[in-house]
């Protein structure tokens, strides 16, 4: 076992996945500390740019978690996330980035156990894959924050 | 009137024992036991047991190693799995019984002449030699170990079976290369650090 520990950004929807993570906490489940969870209202807020932004800033993987199909608090945001995720996977292939580094999961508010299981699994997978190897585009500054005016979309 | 002290001091218990048993496949939920007794009630042999299966679980969990490994219960289990399917918390009680039997044999517990145990050992040897268990061979070995009276008691039945061709008198069932099975077993025993009885 190497000393390498992957860093994973979690994009969790408020109503299901984030609540489930709370439940995992309340139930005192123990899981790998590698995922840093960021709360958004809906997995529909997930933007593939977030993945590249995260990779650029040192992430080895991104975990997006939303409500099960049909259960979205906002009717269908999770389907939108799924669509973007599918496109993103193709893009990852082209860039030579392993698909396993970005994972989309449906986790309902009652599935604390699944939070644990998914995080442990993904951490284990990324440990095996090792650090993300991606070449920084020359000349790009390591900005302290995204450039004003949504520059990262440019 | 003879009286006996039954108090159990904590120092006499083996806490580790419970954790070791809970390690064996099927016994993972040992500590979740709610002591409902469904296992004992479902067990067709519990009426003969000195400790009901429920008590075996409770005592295992609390580290009553000596009592559990010396009990008749583990040798009376007929592996019918009635307890296992009944258990409301998913303890595979039959597997716990196996784990306890293994421990008892390994640590030399219990009366040597418990037939169940001799049967297991005779069977084990036969399979190791031939790759198969010829019933006649296993039985003969068992009752020889158990004592002459057992052998005599079983003789009439043996004779009947022999007459109907259900107990091959001479031949031994053997696979083509028993050595293969032996290798298989020995390999694993090596890994285990020598576990054969």
């Amino acid at each position: 076992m190497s000393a390498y520990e992957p860093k994973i950004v979690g994009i969790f929807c408020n109503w299901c996945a984030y609540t489930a993570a709370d439940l995992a906490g309340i139930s005192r489940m123990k899981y790998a500390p590698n995922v840093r969870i960021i709360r958004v209202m809906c997995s529909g807020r997930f933007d593939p740019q977030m993945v590249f932004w995260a990779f650029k800033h040192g992430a080895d993987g991104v975990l997006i978690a939303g409500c099960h199909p049909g259960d979205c608090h906002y009717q269908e945001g999770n389907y939108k996330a799924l669509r973007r995720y599918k496109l993103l996977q193709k893009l990852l292939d082209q860039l030579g980035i392993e698909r396993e580094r970005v994972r989309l999961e449906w986790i309902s508010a009652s599935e604390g156990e699944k939070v644990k299981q998914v995080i442990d699994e993904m951490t284990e997978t990324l440990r095996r894959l090792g650090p993300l190897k991606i070449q920084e585009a020359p000349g790009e500054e390591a900005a302290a924050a995204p450039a004003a005016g949504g520059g990262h979309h440019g | 009137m003879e009286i006996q002290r039954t108090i159990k001091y904590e120092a006499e218990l083996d806490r580790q024992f419970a954790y070791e048993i809970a390690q064996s496949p099927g016994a993972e939920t040992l500590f979740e036991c709610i002591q409902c007794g469904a296992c004992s009630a479902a067990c067709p042999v519990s009426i003969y047991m000195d400790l009901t299966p429920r008590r075996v679980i409770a005592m295992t969990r609390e580290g009553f190693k000596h009592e559990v490994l010396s009990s008749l219960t583990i040798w009376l289990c007929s592996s019918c799995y009635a307890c296992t399917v009944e258990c409301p918390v998913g303890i595979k009680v039959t597997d716990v019984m196996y784990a306890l039997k293994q421990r008892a044999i390994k640590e030399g517990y219990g009366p040597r002449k418990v037939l169940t145990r001799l049967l297991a050992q005779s069977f084990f040897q036969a399979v190791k030699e031939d790759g198969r268990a010829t019933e006649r061979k296993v039985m003969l070995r068992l009752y020889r170990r158990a004592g002459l009276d057992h052998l005599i008691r079983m003789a009439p039945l043996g004779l009947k079976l022999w007459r109907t061709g259900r107990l091959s008198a001479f031949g031994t069932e053997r696979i083509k290369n028993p050595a293969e099975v032996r290798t298989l077993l020995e390999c694993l025993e090596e890994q285990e650090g020598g576990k054969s009885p």
Partner: protein
Amino acid sequence: MSGYAYYPGCSLLGTGKSYDESVRAVFEALGVPLQELENWNCCGATAYSSIDECTAFALAARNLALAHRRGDPILAPCPNCYLVLTKTQRYLEQYPEIRQRIVQTLERLGLNLGHDVPIRHPLQVLSETPGLEAIRQKIQKPLKGLRVAPYYGCLLARPYPIVEDPWNTTILEDFIRVTGAEVVPYAYRTRCCGGALTGVVREAGLRMVYILLREALRQGAQAVVTTCPLCQFNLEAFQDQALRKNGIQERIPVLYFTQLLGLALGLPPKKLGLHRHLIPFQPQRKALQEAVA
């Protein structure tokens, strides 16, 4: 594919000889191909698990690997073998560490475990191919008027039942009815026969045998039909002692379901191994024939 990889197990070579004979005869008569799994070894049975779980799994695993190599599903008439093989397969999926050890060891013997060799019991197989309806068409000597207690024993019903809902299943009963015989209600159809206890803890074993036989007699059964060599052996070989001890004079033959089926299919009793039984089935049949005539 050369038909089912027939795995008789040790008992079917000894006390369960007639089970072996009747399985082969019935499968042949129904045109379901089977061929013995070459060089199979003992499944490990329950006794082996008492010594060491891991080596018990290894024994069963070798057979699974042999069948995997051959590429055929295993046919295991002995419920004990059926259980041990199934349990091993399940546990090796569930416990990757044990699997790892066994896979490595098997590799040294040039064997590959595989994952999902189907393990089937003749009840399952025959109810699908040729299926009960097809069997019904082939019945030549229906066993009309014969009252039979259906006895599954433990291990086909639990913990890995051959049918989805073991409490409500009628798979064995259906076979009995196909032969033309009548099924009596039998509350103890999945109660333990005592297993190895008859041989090692006599008193307990005999009591268990007695309970099963008494209920069959109480329900007016003229035969008990089993699916297991150990059940058959216990109920037959210890019947005399068990019933005599409780003051019961009657005796009841104990048959394999394949024997019952074979008789109805018109196969000669000898081919079905009926001559090996200690409590003959013949007299009842005669009485029956008289009753019918």
